[in-house]
């Protein structure tokens, strides 16, 4: 079994699905010859040709809208939007058409689409290269939203997304693109959409997070007093999300801290906190805590680590929650 980075795992998943299904095509800005700005699609144009790995004009709405057309006509397009900050121009196409065609046509017209988007901060990037808009898309019916946090899940979730009959946004946490390697099976496998992963089991408190902040949470857990037993849940799928795993965990621990990079107000943590009070009310020992980005514009990179939910803030929240 090869040890791969997140980038390599995605690349492998793309290659295997392209080999297995000739309807799968990649399109986007610089995805072909250049292999994408993060080199996620490196080598794929050489392997599959210019018809299946397509450098498009520089227009996100065009990428998304033409991908929707490809999907309507029976292809399995995988558009790449170069950075999450550039989803804005494609938003209308994705939300108002990609997510609505099935409903609008009562199932006659469907849009199997996997939208790949690097997401999140922490890489010293310019403006609009570091945001976390997952909750915006989770809010829109008809679309699924996933965000893997490790190479194994990256490949498995990608294959699920490509085979899914509905539009899926596949957010790639760019901060951990090459942060570490992990064993990734050569065999084709899937990680089901909508299933969380319990990273660490524990009894005293539950941390729920996803994407790159899984590692901030793990770091925080290392800094906690030894007697504290913390359960860490990596959500993996933002919509649909694994309510049962969260409820089961919080009913056991009675305490929960939610961590995400996105701004606090209407962040996906708000949805989870609401669900917890609905399902675990009588078991809660403390108010649910959120450690999130602030309700501000994501700062330029000199201040990005002050904005992101870094380890000390998570430790604080866990201690406050357990002391409540």
């Amino acid at each position, binding site marked *: 079994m090869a040890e791969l980075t997140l980038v390599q795992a995605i690349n492998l998943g793309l290659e295997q699905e392209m080999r297995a299904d000739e309807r799968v095509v990649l399109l986007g800005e610089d995805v072909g010859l250049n292999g994408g700005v993060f080199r996620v699609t490196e080598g794929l144009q050489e392997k599959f040709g210019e018809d*299946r790995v397509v450098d498009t004009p520089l227009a996100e709405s065009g990428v998304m809208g*033409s991908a929707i*057309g490809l*999907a309507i*006509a029976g292809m399995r397009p995988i558009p790449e939007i170069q950075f999450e900050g550039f989803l804005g121009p494609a938003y*209308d196409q994705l939300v108002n*058409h990609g997510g609505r*065609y099935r409903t609008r046509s009562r199932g006659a017209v469907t849009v199997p689409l996997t939208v790949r988007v690097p997401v999140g901060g922490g890489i010293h990037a310019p403006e609009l290269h570091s945001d976390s808009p997952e909750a915006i898309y989770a809010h829109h019916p008809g679309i699924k939203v996933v965000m893997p946090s490790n190479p194994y899940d990256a490949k498995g979730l990608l294959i699920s997304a490509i085979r899914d009959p509905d539009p899926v946004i596949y957010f790639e946490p760019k901060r951990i693109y090459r942060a570490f390697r992990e064993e990734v099976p050569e065999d084709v496998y899937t990680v089901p959409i*909508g299933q969380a992963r319990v990273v660490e089991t524990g009894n005293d408190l539950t941390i729920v997070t996803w994407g790159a902040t899984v590692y901030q949470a793990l770091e925080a857990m290392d800094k906690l007093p030894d007697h504290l037993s913390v359960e860490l849940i990596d959500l993996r799928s933002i919509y649909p999300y694994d309510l049962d795993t969260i409820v089961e965990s919080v009913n056991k621990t009675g305490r929960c801290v939610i961590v995400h990079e996105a701004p606090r107000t209407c962040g996906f943590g708000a949805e989870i906190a609401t669900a917890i009070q609905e399902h675990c009310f009588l078991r809660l020992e403390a108010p649910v805590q959120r450690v999130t980005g602030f309700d501000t514009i994501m700062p330029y990179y000199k201040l990005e680590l002050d904005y992101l939910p870094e380890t000390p803030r998570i430790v604080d929240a866990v201690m406050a929650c357990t002391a409540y």
Partner: protein
Amino acid sequence: MPTKVAYQAKINYIQILNEQGKLDEKLSRGGLKDNDVIRLYEMMSLCRHYDEIAFKLQRSGRMGTYPQNKGQEAIGAVALAAQPDDWLVPCYRENTALFLHGLPMEHILLHWMGDERGNQIPDGVNVTPISIPIGTHMLHAAGIAWAQKLQGNDTAVFTFFGDGATSEGDFHEAMNFATVLKVPAVFICQNNKWAISTPGSKQSAAETFAQKGLAYGAHTIQIDGNDIFAVYKAAKDARAKALKDGKPTLIETLTYRLGDHTTADDARRYRDNAEVEEWLDRDPLIRTRKYLESKGLWDDAKQEAFDEDAKAKVSQIVKNAEGIAKPTTNDIFDYTYETLPEDLKRQRDTMKTHSLGINPQQETLRSPTGAASRV
């Protein structure tokens, strides 16, 4: 250094059947045959009836907002230029083309009656649902055409939009993608002079809408859009070119919206009656009938019999549309995804209980006697 011309272009305009019903024999060669003209004339006339009845249905509260197609029926000639497997990606003023391409006529009424089943395109009919937001669907046409190319199909895609839509960014992205990727798409701008209350002069400073295609390296042509021969020829030529060299065409049809934008609009607020009167003389139905009469293919008796028959047909279509059972509330949920996520199932199932879809967890807050304390 002397200035050189880097690029020069012109926009051709064609009219084949003039307002008096006289045909340009040379330009019409290889075009519509007599039986095509009769077929088109009959569909155009049927749709005129359909429009009138739809208007009355709205006024009498039996249907929601409806955009009349009146005056723009000649666009149906595109369907005759299309092959059965070609795709039509419409806006909402192309009824004649959609019906001729196989869309059952009650579908459009159902759509405007607030029923998504109007968009449930039957298998084998390559038409996308009519598109309400302006100017976004041409990108889907570009993508569908791209798929035809990748799949090695010998099919083309025709997409329709108005003059106002050319101001939308997606129009430009669609033209650009289609031409750069060399896909078999045909872009048809129905320039009906008005985008609700905004005239063409406030939409664009360009002399023609067709010339916008030049910037993308597309073939371009402007035609008399009330002339079925010109519409047919332009569409047929564009189809052939798109399939031959992968070079899309932008066709600008000069036509006129004889009715209001929709039943919710009153065009008298913003346009002169004199202008409408002028265009009434250019009505595509009048000139097509004149042509047929000049060839001895149509007369008053035929018209009378046709109108009787058309009224009965439309009345049956209305019956079909109104006769369909109301959709169930499950339908709100069941088409959101192919497989419903658990939470959506919960929402769907509780919607049918006394909780009426409020948060299912609140069910447990109710007293055993059922006296709900809604929060």
